[in-house]
């Protein structure tokens, strides 16, 4: 005998949203986690421009150094990547796109204490993987490979669909 869990989840989300940002105040002990994630972003490393367009895929807090904030025009049918160099916040990933193909991927720096060794194999894999037939991939999250998968999806989000 099952009650509709989908409906229950929808009302839960609505209730939480209506209650607003009720953040648990940093209790007696320990710093708030939120302040850690919201680290001020330092300017991106100078991107290596390899093509005409630079479309940064970064979410910068208001205080951050303004990036060349251009959006990527969505061209009608072209699958593949828009030429340019892409970066991301917190973890800086540079993706060089040449002639619509991923030419090179470099993880330039991370502002979080992530085990970056986990993503050492990423660049080559992403370069090999560029024939994505889908907008997004639903997958279980990896651990040792977590970052690799996650970052490659971040790259996918820089797709000029």
């Amino acid at each position: 005998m099952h009650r509709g869990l989908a409906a229950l989840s929808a009302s839960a989300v609505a209730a939480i949203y209506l209650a607003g940002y009720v953040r648990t105040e940093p209790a007696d002990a320990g710093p708030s986690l939120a302040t850690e994630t919201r680290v001020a972003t330092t300017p991106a490393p100078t991107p290596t421009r390899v093509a005409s367009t630079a479309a940064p895929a970064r979410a910068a807090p208001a205080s951050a150094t303004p990036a060349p904030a251009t959006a990527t025009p969505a061209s009608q049918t072209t699958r593949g990547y828009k030429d340019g160099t892409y970066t991301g916040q917190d973890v800086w990933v540079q993706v060089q796109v040449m002639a619509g193909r991923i030419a090179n991927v470099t993880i330039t720096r991370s502002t979080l204490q992530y085990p970056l060794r986990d993503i050492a194999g990423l660049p080559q894999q992403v370069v090999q993987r560029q024939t994505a037939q889908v907008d997004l991939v639903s997958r279980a999250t990896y651990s040792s490979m977590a970052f690799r998968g996650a970052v490659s999806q971040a790259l996918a989000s820089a797709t000029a669909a």
Partner: protein
Amino acid sequence: MTRLVHAFATISMDTMVNVQVISDQPRAQVEQAVQRGFAWFDTVEQICTRFDPASEVMRLIGSAGRPVRVSTLLLEAATFALSLAEQTDGAFDPTIGARLEHMGFDTNYKTGQRVHSATTVDRVSYRDVLIDRRAGTILLRQPLVLDLNAVVKGLAIDLAVRELHEYANLCFEAGGDIYVRGRNAGGEAWHIGIQHPRVEGLIARSLRLADEAVCTSGDYERRAPGVDGESHIIDARTRRPVTDLASVTVVAPTAMAADGLSTAAMVLGRERGLRFLEDQAVGGVLIAPDGAMVSVNL
């Protein structure tokens, strides 16, 4: 008409969070809403993480035996997790947090610190968690670790996309859990692939979706360091990892439901998991370790 794709990314909940908004608005304007969405991730994590003894859910341990007034967020997340436990007859059980710690899922991804809670590991179940919704309280009958990880990532996605309510076309993805709305940049329904659980990079099946969430739970996710072959999908009754499913993907109206139900179906195993998803009227794709695939309502 020119349509713009605005892409943003951040890290929260030990995973990469990506959003694409398709809108004619300037990036700066979209970004404000996206940042509000990202802020929900931090809020949810801060309240629900079991990797920080100071989080609201972990502070319950110290108050075991008496009711504690909690935030709406924790109340709702815990209520949903307990409903999931009840409706799977305890196969899914959010009170196995301490057991997960013992299996090695114990390291705070931000600080690298390991957590070890002074709790009862065995002989606790979801029945030891009493929620009084009217009073807004949670009572732990024993000191136990509530593990809400099966629902909080989805919940955060749902809250985040609410912040983006004015945008008709978007996708929001956190570590492989996805919510899509409207159409992609090409003007088509979003095209979502399901990762094959055994072959990296291979799409087992693809779906065309709009205004729905997709989450996948798999035996290949987040293996504990040094605990060979043990995944964190555990049947709470047998205390053993599940073996007859490699992954379960659920398509549901909310990411919270897709997240929770995919985990629940995974622990139920192939036969019962399939029936469960059928009863819940959500879409599902179940893949066995040998690659055999069965789907429901899709």
